[in-house]
């Protein structure tokens, strides 16, 4: 195995290339500290890159994110380590040694121009993770058109080694002999920002996700409604391509739940569902939208006003209810929602064309392994535990390692961004202390 050592005094390792990790990296780099930004997938961008619009301003998500992604790429103080994983950490605050595994892309990053011709010839089609599996990609791929870095990756698992890509590539970038590399880093501080996964909605069998084609989870819906998604932003049913006339959202799927799932509130779902509902009405004013909620969480800045606007100006209908079951008509693939209307205390049903589930946002499963490598404490749900929830929400049990974003606890984008800056400030403090000790 090839071993490379990257030494950089005054550097910080940021783990996770989503909006939190990017913000922490940019803050540190802008003030003159060197940053290694590590991301396990082939591109930075994270969850925010998958979203269509963002609430409550309805900014196009990738449009406001892409400049930040490119800034991370172009910044002279940031080294991107994409398709990488942390393997081992030793040392202490001011002086950590980190062993990083760089997985083989089977593409020479120096040579790949990102032209995409290889993917045109690749005969293998697989579901695209970036599109939550509702679109397809080739075995040689970039996750999204705005990928950073714009370098192709061959997915070893699905590649049949036909080498058509290799023959096509004018830059001669395809390299099937590429091996995993080990990179050793020396850093003064570490910031962890590993984000969230979605609760597996299949576990709530009553809603039919995984069994019925027209029951989606919200991130799939984001890709469906996104202009850069697999349908080019057309909201259609996956079963028959028909334009839905009535769509229902079900909140709290596996969250705030004592039976299956997690007991906490994911904090963002009520408002993102409201945003998605507005998007539907914007795309198609004829389509009815119902949000079945349990308790509307509208605590953030501008949230209440956003929900009021959705109801009064966009005609989104909110029903306080406990949805019991979704039943599919096997012939038409139309859905019937059974629910207990908790305002009127009666059981009702409604025929709908499409159901969107809002599953709990849970900390990534990989946190467990990362926590043991870094020596961090995880709480019962797998969030990284902070040292003092009141006054030190960003500090961990290991001095010099800080946490931010969703992996610290449920939060939305602005909260993640602010906290990421906070993690950058704490890391900068550690670096300042280390520098002053060195000077003495």
């Amino acid at each position, binding site marked *: 195995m090839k071993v490379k050592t990257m030494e950089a005094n005054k550097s910080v390792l940021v783990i996770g290339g989503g909006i939190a990790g990017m913000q922490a990296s940019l*803050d*540190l780099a*802008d*003030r003159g500290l060197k940053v290694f930004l590590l991301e396990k997938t082939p591109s930075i961008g994270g969850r925010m890159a998958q979203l269509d619009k963002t609430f*409550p*301003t309805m900014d*196009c998500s990738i*449009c*406001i994110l*892409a*400049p*930040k992604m*490119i800034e991370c790429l172009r910044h002279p103080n940031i080294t991107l380590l994409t398709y990488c994983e942390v393997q081992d950490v030793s040392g202490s605050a001011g002086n950590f040694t980190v062993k990083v595994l760089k997985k083989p892309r089977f593409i020479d990053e120096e040579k790949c121009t990102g032209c995409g011709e290889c993917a045109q010839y690749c005969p293998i089609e697989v579901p695209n993770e970036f599109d939550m599996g509702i679109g397809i990609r080739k075995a040689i791929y970039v996750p999204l*058109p*705005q990928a*950073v*870095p*714009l370098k192709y990756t061959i997915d070893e698992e699905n590649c049949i080694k036909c080498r058509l890509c290799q023959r096509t590539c004018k830059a001669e970038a395809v390299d099937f002999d590429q091996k995993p590399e080990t990179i050793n880093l020396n850093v003064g501080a570490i910031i962890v920002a590993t984000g969230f996964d979605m609760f597996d909605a299949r576990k709530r069998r009553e809603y039919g996700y995984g069994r019925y084609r027209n029951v989606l989870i919200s991130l799939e819906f984001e890709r469906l409604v996104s*202009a*850069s998604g697999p349908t*080019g*932003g057309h909201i259609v049913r996956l079963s028959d391509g028909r334009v839905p006339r009535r769509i229902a959202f079900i909140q709290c799927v596996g969250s705030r739940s004592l039976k299956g799932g997690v*007991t*906490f*509130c994911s904090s963002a779902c009520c408002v993102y569902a409201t945003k998605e509902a507005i998007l539907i009405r914007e795309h198609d004013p004829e389509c009815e939208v119902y949000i079945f909620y349990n*308790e*509307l969480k*509208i*605590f*953030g*800045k*501008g*949230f*209440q*006003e956003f929900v009021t606007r959705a109801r009064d100006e966009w005609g989104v209908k909110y029903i306080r209810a406990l949805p019991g079951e979704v039943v599919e008509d096997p012939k038409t693939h139309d859905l019937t929602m059974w629910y207990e209307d908790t*305002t009127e*205390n009666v059981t009702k049903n409604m025929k709908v064309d499409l159901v969107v589930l809002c599953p709990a946002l849970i900390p990534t499963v990989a946190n467990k392994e990362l926590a043991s490598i870094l020596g961090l404490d995880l709480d019962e749900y797998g*969030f990284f535990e902070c040292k003092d*929830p*009141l*006054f030190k*929400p*960003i500090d961990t049990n290991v001095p010099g390692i800080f946490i931010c974003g969703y992996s610290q*606890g*449920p*939060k939305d*984008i*602005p*909260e993640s*961004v*602010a*906290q990421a*800056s*906070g*993690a*950058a*400030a*704490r890391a900068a*403090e550690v670096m300042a202390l280390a520098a*002053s000790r060195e000077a003495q």
Partner: protein
Amino acid sequence: MKRVEEETPRIGVFICHCGINIGGIVNVPEVVEYAKTLPGVVYAEDNLYTCSSVGISKIKEGIAKHNLNRVIVASCTPRTHEPLFRGACEEAGVNKYLFEMANIRDQCSWAHMHEPEKATEKAKDLVRMAVAKSRLLKSLEEPEIDVTPSALVIGGGISGMTTALCLAGQGFKVYIVEKEPELGGMLRHLYKLYPTMQDASERLNHIVNSVKSDKGIEVLTSTVVKQVKGFIGNFEVTVQKANGGTANFGVGTIIVATGAPIFEPVGMYGYGEYDNVITQLQLEQLLKDGQLKKPKSVIMIQCVGAREKEGRTYCSRICCMTAIKNAMLIKDLYPDTDVHILFRQLQTYGEHYEEHYRTAQDKGVKFIKYLQEKPPEVISGKNGKLTVNVHHALLDEELKFGSDLVVLSTPLIQHEDAKKLSQILKVPLGSDGFFFEAHVKLRPIDFATDGIYVCGTAHSPKDTPESVSQALGVASRAAIPMALKRLRTEAITAVVNETYVVAVEPA
């Protein structure tokens, strides 16, 4: 070398499809062909995403290949994208002030999404206007300035103190200006803090002492900011002491951490009229002082003066958890006291607050949902006894409670003098009265004015951990220019044409 102003304009136009955001409505190839016909344009092309790394290298290639001396991108908003495109121009040797943008997304494909032809015509108009302006652009050099490595923190509550300690820890000098005679802010009035139920004063004293003993922090209590002049890196601050004396000092950055008081619900639910109708903050004080005499029945009413149809339309975020916390404290103290919380929507968000809600229920706190259209009524009877009528929204029943203590949960609101401060600093307030950040999503703690930042409840209602997170965030944002020590500032500045000045207000 010839100055660019003397060269014939060689304009390159890059028109973005933005996936289908623009390209789905506006006929982009048609706009490209049109751009090629405009005077001064020597090159035009379309890009799927001009902001992608491919798009950026296309701009740079175009500059080199066609010897462009001016560049236009027709895409989205300069607010988010201008720095990126300007950067690309600079890297390819074109002065960034020779770059111009036309916003054909917000102003064409979005605004006229149902009229593709008109959207296309308007896009052509905007491109023509950009080209006309581009021909007249001049290259400019940005002056470099020194940054004073010190910060002014306005407000000595938990947010201000947290920011100050973190900035001092990074080696910067900090001035805290607090209008009250002592540090601590809102936390001085609180008893226990959720989610840990720790004593506020115990922790606060420790933090106040750390601030006072930090050599890098200068604390000015009973002091207000009177005047601020200058700009990022070089603000001149005048402060005024309670005794009238003033002082001046220079700072590189300014942080607004002025906090938020609670709304006094005078005239609502008998507040101000009956002694046993109080606010959560007054209850907190009673609990803190051990002065709460055992009540038989406590009724807490949520959303008093919050989430209104007009006026204070916002949710104050902290009141549900504050009520739950105080209800539990009463139950711990007097287990057989009845405690009811009348709420509209219970804001028990995040990882732990649902847990507190369940614990409160286990302790016997009762929750009753009421509708905004049918608010509870508080009626005074004999011997100071109160009766509370409420419509139970889930049972659809009218309920009547006797109560000897009604506690109103009222929202955090902006300080009365915030407007004055916003004028002194030239930073905006939102329609909710709170300070308004540069960008809700991606610049939540910056102001649009460089070098000035906001954190804590001055920004919007939030609890202690949330305020601390923002305060630490600001300690990074403000540190960036101060760590750099030197800054390049905007070269485009306003000039006054004295010919048209009709009157000058005396200073």
